[in-house]
C-alpha cells in the first residue's frame, strides 16, 4: 500500500546500503522535517513551545547522547543528569567570562568540558562492568552535584547558589534570557539538534559505530578481533558526554533560564534513561519516540481530569501522575522490551509486505 517497494530497484551494493533503501522512508522523514522546521513553529502557541516542542528536542538530544553510551557501546550510565550539569555550568562560565562569545559556539564548546569529565569517569569502565559500572557512574552523579553546590566559582559567588541566564543574542536575535522569544529559542535548539543528530547517524553507521556495537555485544570477543577497548569505550564516553553536555547547556540556557544544582539530580538521569530505554536502545529514532512519550505524558495526564470534568486537587494529580508513569513504564517494557523504535520497525515490516502476513 503506502509502503509498496515494487519498482525500486537496487543496481549497486552502495544503493542497497544507503540510508534510505526504501524511498517512502525518505518521504516520511521529509514530511517530519517539514513539520519540525515550518509547520509546528509557525502554528505553536507559547504553551506548546515551552511544554512540548523545546523539551522534546532537548530530551531527545540528551537521550541520543546516553544511547550512544548505553545502546551502542553497552556501558550503562546513571550519571547523565550530572553530565548535563557540567555542560550547563561550563556554558555559564564561558558566557560570563567572554560576554561577546556567540552562543552557538559557547553551547558547542561546553560539550567538550562534559566530554572531558565523562572520559575521566569512564576510565573505570575498563575494569568494571555491568551493574558495578552503573553504580560507579552514580559516583559521578553525586560527586558532581555536590561540587556544583560547594564550588562557588562555578556560579560566580552569587548568594542564591543558582545560575541565572543573562540576555544573549545571536546575530541580533535574542535567544536566551528573559527577552528571548520561544520561537527563536526553538530554532536555535533545532539547528543544534539537527546538526548533532545527522553527525550521530553517520557516526553510528560507520566504522566507529561497528566498533561500539562489537564492544557492546561482547567486549572480550571484540578485543580478540583487534578492537582497542580502551579507545572504543573512552570514545563512547567522550562522544556521549559531549552530546549530553550540549543538551544540558541548552536545557538551562534555552529552556529553564535558571538552574540550581539539584535540577541535575538523579531524577533527571533516570528521566533520560527512561527515554532511551522506552524509545529503544541502539536506535536513533527511539530517542525521539521516547522523548515525545515522556514529555507529552504528564501534559496529557494533567489535562485529562479537567476535560472529563473531575475536580481533583493538583497535588493529588501530581501523585497520580507519578503512579501512572511508573505503571506505563512497566507496561511498555512488558509489551515491547526493545522499545518503541522496535514497535515502529515491526509496523513498517508489516506495511512493506502487506497484504501478505509473511
Amino acid at each position, binding site marked *: 500500500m503506502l509502503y509498496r517497494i515494487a519498482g525500486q530497484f537496487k543496481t549497486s551494493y552502495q544503493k542497497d546500503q544507503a540510508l534510505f533503501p526504501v524511498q517512502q522512508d525518505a518521504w516520511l522523514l521529509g514530511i517530519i522535517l517539514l513539520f519540525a522546521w515550518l509547520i509546528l513553529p509557525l502554528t505553536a502557541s507559547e504553551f506548546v513551545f515551552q511544554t512540548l516542542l523545546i523539551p522534546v528536542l532537548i530530551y531527545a538530544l540528551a537521550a541520543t547522547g546516553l544511547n550512544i553510551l548505553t545502546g551502542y557501546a553497552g556501558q550503562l550510565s546513571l550519571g547523565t543528569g550530572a553530565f548535563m550539569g557540567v555542560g550547563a555550568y561550563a556554558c555559564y562560565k564561558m558566557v560570563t567570562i567572554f560576554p561577546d562569545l556567540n552562543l552557538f559556539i559557547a553551547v558547542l564548546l561546553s560539550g567538550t568540558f562534559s566530554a572531558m569529565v565523562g572520559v575521566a569517569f569512564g576510565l573505570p569502565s575498563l575494569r568494571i562492568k555491568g551493574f558495578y559500572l552503573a553504580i*560507579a557512574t552514580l559516583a559521578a552523579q553525586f*560527586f558532581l552535584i555536590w561540587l556544583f*553546590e560547594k564550588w562557588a566559582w562555578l556560579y560566580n559567588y552569587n548568594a542564591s547558589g543558582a545560575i541565572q541566564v543573562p540576555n544573549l543574542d545571536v546575530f541580533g536575535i535574542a535567544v536566551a534570557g528573559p527577552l528571548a522569544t520561544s520561537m527563536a529559542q526553538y530554532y536555535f535548539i533545532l539547528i543544534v539538534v539537527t546538526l548533532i543528530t545527522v553527525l550521530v547517524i553517520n557516526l553510528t553507521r560507520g566504522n566507529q559505530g561497528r566498533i561500539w556495537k562489537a564492544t557492546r555485544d561482547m567486549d572480550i570477543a571484540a578485543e580478540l578481533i583487534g578492537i582497542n577497548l580502551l579507545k572504543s569505550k573512552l570514545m563512547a564516553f567522550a562522544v556521549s558526554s559531549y552530546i549530553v553536555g550540549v543538551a544540558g547547556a541548552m536545557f538551562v540556557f534555552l529552556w529553564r533560564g535558571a538552574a540550581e544544582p539539584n535540577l541535575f539530580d538523579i531524577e533527571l538521569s533516570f528521566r533520560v534513561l527512561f527515554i532511551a530505554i522506552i524509545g529503544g536502545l541502539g536506535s536513533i529514532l527511539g530517542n525521539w519516540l521516547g522523548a515525545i512519550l515522556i514529555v507529552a505524558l504528564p501534559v496529557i495526564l494533567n489535562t485529562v481530569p479537567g476535560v472529563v470534568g473531575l475536580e481533583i486537587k493538583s497535588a493529588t494529580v501530581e*501523585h497520580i501522575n507519578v503512579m501512572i508513569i511508573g505503571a506505563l513504564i*512497566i507496561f511498555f*517494557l512488558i509489551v515491547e522490551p526493545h522499545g518503541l523504535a522496535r514497535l515502529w520497525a515491526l509496523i513498517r515490516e508489516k506495511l512493506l509486505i502487506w497484504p501478505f502476513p509473511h
Partner: protein
Amino acid sequence: MEMLSKIFVEPFADMVAAPDFLMQVIWEGLVSGVLYALIALGFVLIFRSSRIFNFAQGIMVVFAALTLVGLHAMGIPAWVSVALTLVVMFIIAVAIERIVLRPLVGQPDIILFMATIGITLFLVGTGETIFGGENKVMITSELGIPTGDVVLEPFGGFLLLQHLDITVVISAALLVCALLVFLGKTQMGRAIRALGDDHQAALSVGISLQTIWVLVWFVSGIIALVTGIAWGARAGVSFALEIIAFKALPVLMLGGLESITGAIIGGLAIGVLEKMFEIYWGQPLLGGNTEVWFAYVLALGVLLFRPQGLFGEKIIERV
C-alpha cells in the same frame, strides 16, 4: 606543606587527642552502617535469586514504614499494624512477581532494572496518593522501642549511646542471624541458594521459580519494614528516606552483588568510614556534606582493584 599537614597529620592528631569523640563518631557510623547493610541485604537476596538489580528496595523501606504509620493512625493497635503491614508487603511481593517479573523473565538485565525503577515510581505515586507526602513520626513508643540514652565514660571522656540505636543494632543482628539460619538450614533457604547458583539446574530438580521469587521479595519486604522502623524512628518517615537506597548501592559495590557477608561488612565499613571522613576531613577541608558521595568514591577505588567487589563471585568471562 600546610595543606599536607591538614590532610595527613591534623585529623589523626584530633583522633588521638579526643578518643571519646572518635568513639562517638564510630558508633554513629556503625548504626547507620547497620541500616545500609540491611538495605543492601534486601538487594543481595533478590539479586542472587533472580539476577534482578532491585532498585525498588529503597522505596519498599519507605512504603513499609508509611503503611505501618498510616495503619496505626487509623486506630489499629501497633503490633496489629505491624502484622497488617507484613500482609501488605506480601501482597506487593505477589503482585510484583505476577504482573512485572513473570512477563519479563529472560529479558536483558537492564530491562528488568528499568522495570524496578517503574515499580519505584508506582510505589512513590501510590504512597503519596494514599498517605500524603508530608513527614510523619514513627510510632516508636507504641512498638515498645526504648528511648533515652546511656552515657559511658571511656578514657575519662563522654560517650552517648541512644537506647534506640542499641535496639536497632541488636535487632538487626538478630534479623541477620535469622536470615542466615533460614538460608542455610531450611529447605526454602536452600532452594533460594540453589536458584542463585544455577537457574536451570534448580528448575530441573523441581524448584519453583515463581514461589521462590515471591518468597524472596517478601523477605526483602520484611527487611524493608525493619529498616523502615529503625530509620523512621531516627529521622521521621517521609519520601526523603528513599535516599538511603542510594547509600546501599556503594555498599553492594564494595561487598559484591552476590555476597551476604559482603553486604554486612561493606555496610558497616561504609557507615563508619563516611562518618569519619565527614567529621575529620570533609567538614574542615571540603565544606561538609561529603557523605553524599564519599561511599561511592570509596567503592569505586576498591572496585578498581577488585572488579567484583570484596566478596563477590569471581567474574569469569568466556568468548
